[in-house]
Structures are given as C-alpha cells and as structure tokens.
C-alpha cells in the first residue's frame, strides 16, 4: 500500500492503495465514478477510457502509480452546467443503443477533436478505430462527431462560455 495523489475532474484525492491497482477500479470503486467501465480489461475496446494529458487512454491497463497528470472522465466534460458539444451532439443524433461503450466513444472523440478540430472522414475512422461498439452505433457516432466539430467551430472563441448553441 502507498499514498497516491490523484486529480480527477478538477478535484484532488489522496488514497492509500496498492500502487499496481489499475486506475479503472479506483475511479469506479473508490471515487464513485461510473463513466469509465470495464469492457475487456485488455486495452482493446475503449470502454474504460479517460483523458490524461490530452490523450484518451484505457484506464483498465494503467497502474495507478503510473498516472502522471490530471484525469478527466466522462463526468468531467460538462462545464458550467452545460453538456460538452460532443455530449449534446450524442443526444441530438440519438447515438447510443445500449450505451455501454459510449464513454469510450465520447472520450476518444474529445481527445481527437481537441487535437484536430476539423477531422476528415478518414481521420475520424482512423482515430476512432480502436473504440468498439457491439451495438454497432458507429455510423451515428461518426455523424455526431461531425456535428460536434461544427458546433465547436461556431462557438468561438472557446467552449465553456455561454456560447454553445
């Protein structure tokens, strides 16, 4: 056991925990977050993804001791009581079927758009390709990403002010 400090969605936590514990179980079972979920535990599906240092990474295969940087989970995307444009696009396009994978879809899309606000169709497919959906909501995920990209582009200068349509 050792003391580990984690900053998640803007809040700091100190935990006394076995350092090899995968981050996923700490987020879910100690911090009560339920955006990231267990799908494979192998880094193959994306269900457990969180954003660290701008990258969407699988938390299921990441020992908590190796986390360097602030963690953002699905719960941390909204700001000022408003959903992130991606989340809103997910509602507008009615993306989920069961929804179990959608944490991974949204977090992967967020990391992609933050780096590349105007992705081509091919870039969307490539960036999203490791994020699986067994209900096959892919077509709508791709449509919703394009919709969110437009919303973000129109909502100058930065998302977070009262500018989201």
């Amino acid at each position, binding site marked *: 056991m050792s003391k580990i400090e984690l900053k998640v969605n803007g809040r700091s936590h100190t935990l006394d925990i*076995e350092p090899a*514990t*995968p981050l996923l*179980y700490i987020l*879910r*079972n100690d911090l*009560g977050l*339920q*955006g990231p*979920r*267990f*799908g*494979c*535990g*192998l880094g*193959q*599906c994306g*269900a457990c993804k969180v954003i660290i240092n701008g990258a969407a990474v699988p938390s299921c295969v990441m020992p908590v001791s190796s986390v360097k940087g602030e963690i953002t*989970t*699905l*719960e941390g*995307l*909204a700001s000022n*009581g*408003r*959903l992130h444009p991606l*989340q*809103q696009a*997910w*509602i*507008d396009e*009615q*993306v*989920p*079927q*069961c*929804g*179990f*994978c*959608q944490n991974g879809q*949204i977090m992967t899309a967020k990391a992609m758009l933050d780096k590349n606000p105007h992705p081509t169709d091919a870039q*969307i*497919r*490539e960036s*999203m*390709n*490791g*994020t*699986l*959906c*067994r*209900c*096959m*909501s*892919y*077509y*709508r*995920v*791709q449509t919703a990403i394009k919709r969110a990209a437009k919303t973000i582009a129109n909502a100058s200068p930065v998302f977070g002010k009262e500018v*989201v349509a």
Partner: protein
Amino acid sequence: MSVSAGVPEQIEEALVTHRRGFLKSAGLLAVSFGAFVGAWTTEAVAQSSGGAKGAGPYPDPDFRQIDSWIVIHENNSATFYVGKTDPGQGTGTGFRQLMSDELDIPFDQTACIMGSTDITVDQVGSGGSTAMERDSWPMRRVAAEARRVLLEMASARLGVPVDQLAVSDAIVTVKAEPSKRVTYGELIAGKKFNITLTGNNVNSVTGQAKTKSVPELKNTGQSPQRDDIPAKVDGSLKWAVDVKLPGMVHARNVKPPFACAKLTGIDESSVKGLPGFIKVVSKGNYVAVVCEREEQAIRAARQLKTTWQKPSTAPFPASEDLFSYMRAAAPISASRPLLAGDSETRNPESRPIVVGNPDAAFSGAAKTIEAEYEIPFQGHTAFAGAHATADPSNGQMTVYSNDMKSYGMRRCVAAFLGMPHDRVRVVWMQGPQGFGRTAAEDAGCEAAWIAREIGRPVRVQWMRDEETAWDTKSPAFLVKMRGALDSDGRLVGYEYYARSCDYNHLGYNEPDTVLIAQLMGSRRARPASGSASMPSDMYAIPNRKMAGEVVGLPIVWETPLRTGNLRDPNGPQPTFAAESFIDEAAAAAKTDPLDFRMKMIKADTNDDAGFRRARSIAVLKAAAEAYGWDPRPSPKPIGTGKVLTGRGIAYSFRGQTVVAQIAEVEVNRQTGHVWAKRLVCAHDCGLVVNPESLRHAVECGTLHGLSRAIHEEVRFDTEKVTSLDWFSHPTLRHADVPERIDIVLVNGDPNPNRPDLPPYGAGEASLKPMLAAIANAIHDATGVRIRRVPFRDDRVLAALKAAGV
C-alpha cells in the same frame, strides 16, 4: 448536472422543476432525473408504487389491477410500470408514446419504469422483438381503461354525463362550458384506481374501454427523443455494473481450463496470503474466489492453483474441422419422434416441408444447380462480461441484473437456490446489449449462490476471456441446396437441407442448464434439441422440399460451445444460404436477381397471411428505388483495377416484418478485403411507433449483420475455445462502417391507412438478409461465390486466387 443542456434556460428550469416535482411525487427524490431512468432506487420506487416493501417478501404485482400499471401524481403526471426491459432499442420511450396516447396525457408528463420483478407486472421481459407487436397491447388496454375510469370520476365530480365531457392533455373539461375542468391529478393523485381488470393472463388483460384507432394516436408515429440517452452520455446513469451495497464484496470465477474438465484439487494456500482474500467457494466443477476489492478478486482468481482432469474423449472437433464433422455426424433430433425425456417440444420447423413434386421437377429440369453453405458458431460477445450483484439480506435474495428477462431470472434463481418465489426479486438495470445472451444469463445465479454461501452482498463479473469463450453461441449451420430451372430459366424445383450444430441449446433462465448448474452437476438429463430452421418460405416455387436436422457434439454439457438464442435466433444462417442460392439461380438463368425474386413473389399469393407478399413487393421496390438499382444479371463484367465493386440484394421476413437489403461492396483484389461502401435497408413492420428509434435499431441491426458477414467466428481446438478477446473473435469497427446507410421505412400494407394497422416486431429482422446481401455483392463484383461465413480477407483472397480473379 443538467440533462437538458441546449434547452433555453427558462424551459430547462421548468423541466427540472417539473421533474423534481415529478420525482417527489413518485417517491424518487433520492436520485437525479438522469439516474431516474435506470430505476436504481428501487426501494423508493417500490414504496411509491404501493408495491412490495424493501425488506421483502416480494409478491408479484397483480396484473389485474390498474394500480400495478399506472400511477397518477398530484402534478398531473403519470408513471407507467411495465414488465418489459429496454436494452437500448428505445422500447421504453415507445411504451410511453402508446400509453400516453391511450390515457390522453402529454408524453412529456410521463415516465416509464421497467422490469423489476417486485414493482412491475410479469410481462417476461424482452426478447424476440415482441415489445410493440405483443406486449404493448395490454399496456394500451390498461391505459385506455384508466382513461375511462378517470372520465367517470370527472363526471361525478363535475356533475355532467361522460358523453358531455372532453379530455385532452390529462385535463377533463365540460364540452359546453370549458372553464369547468378538472385534472387527472386532482381526480386521483394519492388514491388508487382500485379497478380490477379481466383476462386470464397478462397478455390478455383488459378493461371495458376500447383502444384507439391508428388515426386517433397522436404521439405514436412521432419521434420524441429516447429518454434513456441523456443519462447514458453524461455519465449519470447507474448501470447494473455500478451497484454498490454496504458490506459488498467481489467474486471472480475460475473457469475449467478445458471443456468438460473435472476439478481434482484446489490449493487454497496459493491465494491465502493475498490482500483482501476472503474465501474460495466451490461445488462440483464450479470455483470462484471472493475478495474485499474487485482488483483483488481478479488477481486471486488468476493466481488460485487448481488441478483438473481432462475428459477421456475430445469434447468437440477443432473449428477448422467443424463442417466435415457436421457432414459425417449422425443427426440427433430432427426426423425422429419425440423421445421420453426430451426436454422441449422440438421446433415444428424441423419437420420436412414438401410442396408439389420436387423429384419430378428435378428429373425434368433443363438445368440443375447445387451449392453448400457453411456458417460457423458466432458469439454473442457482449461488450462486457456477464455480471450481477446479489444481496442476501433479511432472508431474501435481491439480484441486480441486466437480464433482459428479469422475471425468468427470478424464477431461475428461486429454483436454483430452492427459495420460495416471493423471497427473490430481480431489479433490472441497464447493461451491455441483450441480444439473447442475457436471457440465458449466468452471473445472476452465481452471485446469488455465492451471496448465500458467504452471507454478504456480492458482485460477480465475468472477464473478457471468460465471456468470449464461455458465452452462449449462435449455432453453426451447414446447408445443402439444389435448384431445378426449366427451359425458360424459371426456378421450378428447390431443395433446402440444413444441419445445425445446436444440440445443447439453452432455453431462457433455466435453473438446470445455467452454467453454474451444469458445473455443479445439478443439470437436466437431456439437453434441448435446438433447431435446424428453415428460411422464410418466401417464394412461390411450385415444387419444393425443405428439411433440417440437428447434430450434436461429442460432449454436450460443461462446454463453452453451448448454443443459445442470438438476435433473430437461427434466422441469419438459413437466410444466408437461401438468399445466396436464389442469387445463384438468378445467375444461372442470366436474369437480374431482383427481377428473378419479384417474379416468384407475384406468382402465387394464396398464403398471404398478414399481407407479407404484398409488403414484400413494396419493400423490395422501395429498396431498389432508394439504391438506384439498374436491372442486369450478375456478375457484372469483371473489372481490371485493384478494387472491384458490385451490388447484391437479399430479402426475408421474420414473423410479419419484411426486410430487403442492398449492399454495395468494394473488394480489394490484392488483399481480399471487403468493404461495404453503401447499405440500403427497406423495412416494413406495420405501424411505426417511433420512426427515429426504429431507424436507429434497424441501422444497428443491419451493421450487426455486416459484422457477422465479414468478421465473426468462434474458433476452438479440440478441448477449448481459443477465441478469447476482440482480436480472436473480431467485431465490426469504425473503419468498416459504410460511407452511406439508407434506412427506408415502408408501409406496404394493401390498405396503408387502415385504422387497425398493427405494429409488428422490429429490430431483429434487420439481421437476417445481410449476410447474403454481402455475399451476393461480392459475387457481382468478382464473379466468385463465397459460401463460407465470415468473408474474411484471407478467405476471400484465396477464393479470388482459386478463380483466377
């Protein structure tokens, strides 16, 4: 957090206030609206509905009482309690649309609670795409009856006969004097209907009131957004995997390393010192490890030393030998009478169908063709492993589960543990998919058994390798077909003969076939025989013979190759064969494959129950029009480039629902890779309750069909399944998704505006023709016919090479 961001602030506030008020009156204050949809706080819900108290026992809600179905609150809103589950197709929203129409209450003032056995009536749960087709009817009749009763109450209150009253938006007014009014909430909130309905069972339950005709339905046919989606994208939904209870511990299974292995030893000292270790629980060949924390249980289950003895015979052939095994095996079930001890009546579809004189048609044919098709085992491979949390408090057993048939799980757990029915309840919560896997759910019984063993609430979840290897499988099929063409190129003789490897087919939530029961040895004597089903009998071919037989594997119990119902069970396999073969016949006749089909549909309509043939014609036409189909025979002249393109069509019906699909593919001649560039699906399921939800479900079903066509296959050696993850049992990915998908909703009823147009089942049907549509498109592009599913790159490339393409 707001769940309605994007809505103007004052409206949002009103919504939230309304919802808060709503939740308060529904006894749901403990949760935000976002979490509300998951019906997580069942204690609160239970109390508000007048149903069972949290501590148990949990008697069944009486389906003959309106109060079991509908609660009206002070603020003039209503909660509907229905015995269904919605694993993500939007049926819950659909029920609200239909029930609010019958009750005459605004859709936005309603909510729907589903599938928890102590507070919602037993409508079985979900499955078979029966939500609208069958189960919405009792809901509608009860809502109509509630409206009738409310009108009578208003009549007494306002002193005016019912026929002089009008009702709209849950407000009753006097027609002649509209200022005289009373709301539903004022009439009944806080009180009970106390109206007893009639009907022998939940499906036939009814009051005196009549349901509305189609033109009178206002919300039905609209597309309100699905009410489960906001909480699924903002992270607020409590899923079944999120249940946390005081004192709860975690368990993980230790599966036999080989099929049919016998446990010979457990070395508990191998895990005793591990942090958080509580106990190894075991009976027969079932083993699980219980620890305080989840990651501790995962580690301990991996580290536990166990010894096993292999069976003396190999339990199954290796996957590459499966079809030669199936060809040679002696059939087990079909074409024989029922035997004493057969656990289920055999599927009547397994009896041969003979029409006309097929033998004569073949002997007089101008041309005969034959082909054989192979469809392997395919997995459910749910997005997450089976999971459940069980709480043994108060001498009861509560199971939190995503079992799509939660009522079945309740019966199963009660029987498995030998507990009285009313001491067990299942609280249904959202989870990954359904698709039949959760109707033959395994974790519920495991959690309940362990919880009783250790006397604490316990959460069980299967790991990825367990789920992929040990979930229920869609049976493998081997189909032989023959066709006789006359000199005009008409198909005058047709033979379909299927063998399915389906002898250990699991039913729904059976206490003597659920995996833990098999492993503990408390299983039934004989497995269910499954079925070697026929394709839909769509074409008026004058002489035809269709038969199917089931073959078994050498060992049927305690194996990961147990079969079960996967989304349109045993539908895609026969349809792949039959609709590929029709294309082969069209090619042999050098005719356009759509035209070839159309002629056989028109030929004879004397068995047009539900107007399926009339709707087939409409659906095929709609698909062809949406695609821009140009009539010509297949294959087209083979191109010279690296990428060959082609299009294929296939169609089918499931129940009364008709589906036609067209695929346009690109085949890479150097890699064998197939990409479906464009898909069209035309779909007729009668009355459409929510067109957007339906389009979504059909689109996803269509893509699931594509996934099964190009990726999915369970692989195994002679002692274990070797498909263990997303690489060894691949699934569709973002890069596979078509550039364009068109979903065309068709109403091909001969009288499309008839006031009694019923809803038929939707969703599963869209899986059915897809495999053949892709195979037909590959053939059109390359001239090569692929008769083995899935059309993986290596397989397609080998076939192209062999054909010199």
